């Protein structure tokens, strides 16, 4: 006889839940369709990148200076993974929504929430399924790395891992938004609209308001695609990683709040407010962390090591006052070549735009326009240059310290390569799609995995 003791919720094993989530991802059409679409996207981007890189390499064969400017990160990896970004932005939401949306639509959610798992465990398992889906969806991108290496192309492991890590964070962020959307929507179609509003909205923000001053600049910073920019520049920013993890955890927490159907809406709203506040606090703290690691082989985000060592000794605050409009190309040069690098080595540096955030029009009558003023301690100097070769000696002069001696032999050699381009086309437009179709067929075949099938049948037939 059964007892009427209650079943203990904590006792359930996690493995069956994870296996079920993975099977749900693999047995649906969304992932395979996405993979088949990603193949030509990645393939064409890779082919284009290799062509342009090859043309530049042909020119670089006559000049070592030109060869030094050829980096596979900029020339091949970033443009090729741009196709992956496009797929994750536009197609991945449909894969991720399926992880929860189908259970809501079919009514299976009413079974799921009765299983002996906490809501957070259920959402965690679904996020693990999103991670698995992202990994599978990036098989074409991973295969691109293999082809590039086989073609004789150079890959710097830190650069490559960092870039893929950025794409992983972006994919998980989109996945967490999709889970949240699916948890608050009654249908997968509504969830897709909500998620695409985030991803495509970010895309639109990126090319409409990015680079504009003031409030628009702040709004542009909210774009999801900003997550990728830093990684594409070869920087591993601790604050950015923490902030992104905080936001995706926030969306996952919101999905956890809205998942159980038996909780009154008023209570869900209150819990959501707590989640949003906690996420905002962590995000605010993360934005204060300025620590970042330059993982590029050519150290494009840093001054030479000898200069870094000397600059790190500057103890007093440095104030830089810029008489340039933010949309002025010289400001972009100054920011990239000098200010961004200084900020990484001098945490006590302040950059001010003279007159707030003015435009070129408001600067029309400014006689000082184009000048950049550097104040260190009680000393001040002015320069119009955007090159570290002129700015660094100026700073050493202000700090009254000797410039470091030049370290020989540390130049980036550059990696020109003229590779054969027909193989990637064959792989991405023929071989890989065929393999994907085979894997799809394999996942669809009738299940014969269990001994219970034969046992059950034989007993049934013998009755």
């Amino acid at each position, binding site marked *: 006889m059964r*007892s009427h003791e*209650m079943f203990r919720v904590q006792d*359930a094993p996690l493995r*069956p839940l994870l*296996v079920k989530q993975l099977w749900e991802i693999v047995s649906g059409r969304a992932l395979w369709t996405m993979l088949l679409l990603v193949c030509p996207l990645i393939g064409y981007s890779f082919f284009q990148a290799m062509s342009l890189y090859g043309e530049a390499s042909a020119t670089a064969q006559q000049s070592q200076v030109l060869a030094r400017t050829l980096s596979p990160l900029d020339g091949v990896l970033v443009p090729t993974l741009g196709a992956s970004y496009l797929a994750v932005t536009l197609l991945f939401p449909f894969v991720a929504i399926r992880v929860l949306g189908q259970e809501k639509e079919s009514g299976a959610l009413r079974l799921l929430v009765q299983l*002996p798992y906490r809501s957070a465990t259920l959402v965690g398992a679904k996020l693990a399924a999103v991670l698995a889906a992202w990994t599978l969806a990036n098989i074409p991108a991973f295969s691109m790395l293999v082809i590039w290496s086989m073609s004789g192309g150079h890959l710097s492991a830190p650069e490559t891992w960092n870039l893929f890590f950025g794409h992983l964070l972006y994919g998980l962020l989109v996945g967490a938004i999709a889970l949240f959307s699916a948890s608050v929507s009654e249908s997968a179609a509504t969830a897709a609209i909500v998620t695409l509003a985030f991803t495509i909205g970010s895309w639109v923000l990126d090319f409409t308001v990015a680079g504009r001053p003031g409030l628009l600049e702040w709004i542009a910073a909210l774009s999801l695609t900003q997550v990728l920019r830093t990684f594409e520049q070869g920087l591993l920013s601790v604050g950015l990683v923490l902030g992104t993890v905080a936001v995706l955890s926030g969306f996952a927490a919101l999905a956890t709040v809205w998942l159980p159907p*038996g909780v009154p809406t008023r209570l869900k709203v209150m819990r959501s407010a707590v989640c949003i506040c906690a996420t905002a606090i962590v995000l605010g703290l993360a934005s204060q962390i300025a620590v970042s690691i330059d993982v590029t082989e050519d150290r494009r985000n840093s001054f030479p090591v000898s200069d870094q060592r000397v600059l790190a000794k500057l103890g007093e605050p440095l104030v830089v006052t810029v008489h340039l409009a933010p949309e002025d190309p010289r400001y972009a040069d100054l920011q990239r070549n000098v200010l961004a690098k200084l900020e990484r080595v001098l945490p006590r540096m302040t950059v001010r735009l003279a007159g707030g955030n003015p435009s070129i029009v408001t600067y029309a009558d400014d006689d000082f326009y184009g000048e950049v003023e550097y104040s260190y301690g009680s000393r001040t100097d002015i320069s119009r240059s955007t090159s570290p070769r002129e700015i660094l000696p100026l700073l050493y002069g202000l700090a009254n310290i000797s410039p470091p001696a030049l370290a020989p032999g540390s130049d980036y050699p550059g990696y020109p390569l003229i590779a054969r381009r027909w193989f990637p086309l064959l792989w991405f437009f023929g071989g890989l799609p065929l393999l994907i179709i085979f894997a799809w067929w394999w996942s669809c075949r009738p*299940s014969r*995995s269990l001994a219970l099938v034969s046992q*059950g049948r034989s007993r049934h037939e013998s009755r």
Partner: protein
Amino acid sequence: MVLNVDSLAKRYGEQAALADITFAVRASEIVGIIGPNGAGKTTLLEGLAGILPMDSGDIRWCGKPLPPSRRREAIFYVPDGVRPYRDQSVDRVLTFFADVYRRSVDEIVHTIESTGLAPALGKRVQSLSKGYHRRLMLALGLLTPHAMLVMDEPFDGFDLRQTRDIADVLRREAATGRTLALAIHQLADAERVCDRFILLADGRIRGAGTLNDLQVQTGLAEGSLEDIFLALT
């Protein structure tokens, strides 16, 4: 009494879906929640299972309060009209539930035998007929270890012979000590399987008890459940 429901109520705007629902369930009995479509049966079952928030009311399990967040520790609800895990094969769905509740292969095979699911094991859920789908849902319910199983329209989709077979399965399950609450709109099916009845109409209980109790209550000494239901509603 293993389950006590006291003054359960649920409103959707101006409409009262459930009002002042009070009843008790004994251990190992099969209780039929009987009513026409729209009577509030599903709302009541989902409220019992804790997957639909109620406006008011209390539920006690073995005399102790059972809040909605802990209902799944005592009660498992098998809903009607859901097609879960459509892209999965039947055996994979069964294995999932069995693994979650650490069921042995023997227990799975026994469940497959008792529900007659063997011919459908390798099929995808989406390709199952209505009858086999009901069998799958029943099998999932039987695989759970909960002391009380609540099922919405367990005989929907079965012919007469299949209904009798499934009624036998449920009786055997109750004989193991499990308590069953079944929402049924076919009165003949309910009369065949249930020990006691809760007659529901317009979100209110119109009568409760065994068939004999209800016959006495309505003064219909030879009345069928159908006669009694018509007399009370």
